[in-house]
């Protein structure tokens, strides 16, 4: 009897998966940008992992070429005022930038969704306290709060991560709260209670997995914003210290030369930054289509 259950089960499951791939292909075909963005995403990851081993020059070594050399054959992105190779610096910076934003987003996702889940499910004072806390964070212009936190807690890369995580926290908490509370009394949740699931199991076994698709979209869109924030903080001299290569700081160093026409110092790290943010935003839009074609905006 039990064998009987397993034999027919494989076929429909394959069908389901096929349906999913069909949907994915449809999304890709309808919006080729989504396909491109997934390609870009894997490219970025590859650069972050292997970049440092592949670059032609040591990114922090000065005088590997003449100073302020425009882009050319030996230095693809030119050189800076200390004769460092801009290409190597831009490539090597990828890992640090992604690392900062990934850690920050992970922190805010984990803590934000836990807070939001409890607030949305149990309501009452849990909801009031967490709501008040999130409101207080949101009462600040977020980038300004991040500046204040890094200034107060100390100028280090870890603090950039914490600051970025804190300012993103309310987004996840509020979203998780909203997604959980609309499902709190849904039929399938009531049914789960009748099936003998404990409150915590109802919350994390039934409701939370259903909030993940919209949360994934949020994560992706948020990644781009986290990268921008971290780069913005280092642009004004917080967190990452020279000569460590990081896109924000590279742009900041190049800013002094833009009015004398040495554009490559700003343009290449700026473009890299833009490309990374762009990729995550496109993936976010693509995921949104994948998750819910109706909610396309």
């Amino acid at each position: 009897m039990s064998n009987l259950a397993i034999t027919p089960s494989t076929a429909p499951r394959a069908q389901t998966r096929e349906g999913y791939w069909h949907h994915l292909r449809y999304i890709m075909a309808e919006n080729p940008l989504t396909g491109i963005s997934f390609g870009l995403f894997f490219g970025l990851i590859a650069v972050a992992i292997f970049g440092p081993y592949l670059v032609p020059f040591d990114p922090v070594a000065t005088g590997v070429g003449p100073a302020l050399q425009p882009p050319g054959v030996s230095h693809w992105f030119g050189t800076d005022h200390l004769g460092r190779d801009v290409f190597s610096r831009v490539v090597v910076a990828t890992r640090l930038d992604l690392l900062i934003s990934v850690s920050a987003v992970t922190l805010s996702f984990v803590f934000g969704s836990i807070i939001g889940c409890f607030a949305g499910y149990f309501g009452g004072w849990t909801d009031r306290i967490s709501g008040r806390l999130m409101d207080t964070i949101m009462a600040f212009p977020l980038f300004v709060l991040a500046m204040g936190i890094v200034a107060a807690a100390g100028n280090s890369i870890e603090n950039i991560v914490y600051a970025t995580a804190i300012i993103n926290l309310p987004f996840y908490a509020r979203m998780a709260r909203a997604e959980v509370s609309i499902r709190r009394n849904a039929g399938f949740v009531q049914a789960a209670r009748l099936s003998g699931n404990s409150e915590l199991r109802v919350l994390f076994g039934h409701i939370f997995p259903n909030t993940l698709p919209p949360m994934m979209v949020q994560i992706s869109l948020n990644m781009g914003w986290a990268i921008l924030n971290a780069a913005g903080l280092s642009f004004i001299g917080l967190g990452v210290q020279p000569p460590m290569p990081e896109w924000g700081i590279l742009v900041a160093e190049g800013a002094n030369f833009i009015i004398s026409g040495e554009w490559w110092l700003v343009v290449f790290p700026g473009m890299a930054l833009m490309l990374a943010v762009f990729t995550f935003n496109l993936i976010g839009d693509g995921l949104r289509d994948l998750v819910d074609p109706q909610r396309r905006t």
Partner: protein
Amino acid sequence: MTPPLLDIQRLSVDFATRRGTVRAIDSISLSVAKGETLGIVGESGSGKSVTSYAVMNILDRAGKIAGGKISYGGMSMHKISERDMRDIRGREISMIFQNPRAALNPIRKVGQQIADVLVQHNQATRATGRAKAIEMLLAVKIKDAEKRYEAYPFELSGGMCQRVVIAMALACKPQLLIADEPTTGLDVTTQKAVMDLITELTAKFNMSTILITHDLGLAAAYCDRLLVMEKGHVVEQNTSEALFNSPQKAYTKQLLNATPHRDSYVRDLLTPEQQAQALALPASTEPGAALLSVKSLKKEFGKPGSGHHHVAVRDLSFDIRKGESLGLVGESGCGKSTTSSMIMRLLDTTEGSIEFLGQDIAAIPAKQFARHALRGKLQMVFQDPTDSLNPRWSAERSIVDPLLRLSPDMPAADRQARVLELASLVGLPVELLNRFPHQLSGGQKARVGIARAVAMEPELLILDEPTAALDVSVQAVVLNLLEDLKHRLGMSYLFISHDLNVVRLLCDRIIVMQHGEIVEQGHAHEIMDTPKTDYTRSLLAAIPHPPAADASITGNTELQDGAL
């Protein structure tokens, strides 16, 4: 013979979808004469609403008319420019929709919305708009019309909003009114008031009406002529009386049978083929000892004295005996769902006791009841089959959940066997077990929900409007399944519904509730035939009465009754 007011010839409408073009309606023809009321009846997906959108030329972007002719008063509607069409809408042809609250602009005063239509069609100026709008509000029998002019939709009840929508539609005295499910989602008494109002006003203005509905009984009661649609085709059309009493096509017959009326039995709802396969129901058995005993049950929300204070259930007492089906009937807000949640131990009580199998379960907080020994004995079938299934779980996973939680020691093999057994019990094909809710039809989802509810062999099953979201033909099958299961598994039912005709099919005894209290209770036939209170009488009177059923139908029923 005068030409018809509206004449549709071989109309087809296509919708562009991601799977290519889908033909929503295929070459349908119909006509409406001056002063006539036509009912278009069909189940979901029959294309009945699309027809009306095509007439009004308000199909959404994906839809387009693929062929055929629509002529109105001699004009070819499908050739008319959008600008001219705008003059026709509202002035010549009007439409009212279902879900009246959503049909009104939430941030504009309802009176202004009526005035907008009047001004648009030069029936009033900005100066006289207000007075004329108030006139219309009076015409749709809204009391205190001066004051209601200033109201926003959120300040009005659903029935009141529908009156405003009707006032908007009739403001310019159009020739034709299209009512698309105008009373779906409204209580029966409100439904009757709204339908009577529409009938009265359209007769007064000598208008033609198209009533689009899924409810054959409603259409038959209010229309001169009926047209039955299925999957984009016209199945049959005839005068209401003829169609209702001597349907020609199999689909119409099936639809007629499946629609519960005052004296049908649950088996009558099935098609003859289904009836042939159904098992014989035992003669009515005497119910046993009391299984559930509710005493002085009370539920308050909010703190007394605060603005949110509200008593949902006040002093409710009743028994359900073993093997009995008890119906709990009332209109929205009467406290029937609150009552079921309290008995189900999903909601804490304010006062009173709930004795189940000799134990007062009201004393156990709802949050702790999940691990209680009686949890499996007290189960529920929910209103919306889609909403009641976890969208990320396969049917099998949903059915197995109570087994995993409530009998964790069961060996995996036994569990598998039990799932298959349950699937066959509720008539769910085994190959569907691995499908996800969005891959199942409404009826299949209902079966999954029922299989999950009976998995632990409950003693008492609460049915909370289990068929309200289903088409009538599916409702017929699900109701019969529930009746079978009751006898096979020896369960007792508490059936909650707003529809007396449906409740009567399964229940021996009925309780009528209003404002959180019992108004009347008694045997089903007593309540239906000799109601003692005005409220029950008004509920019964509000059920649409189709043209007098003649001997052929009644005789038929008796015959089938004897056969079973």
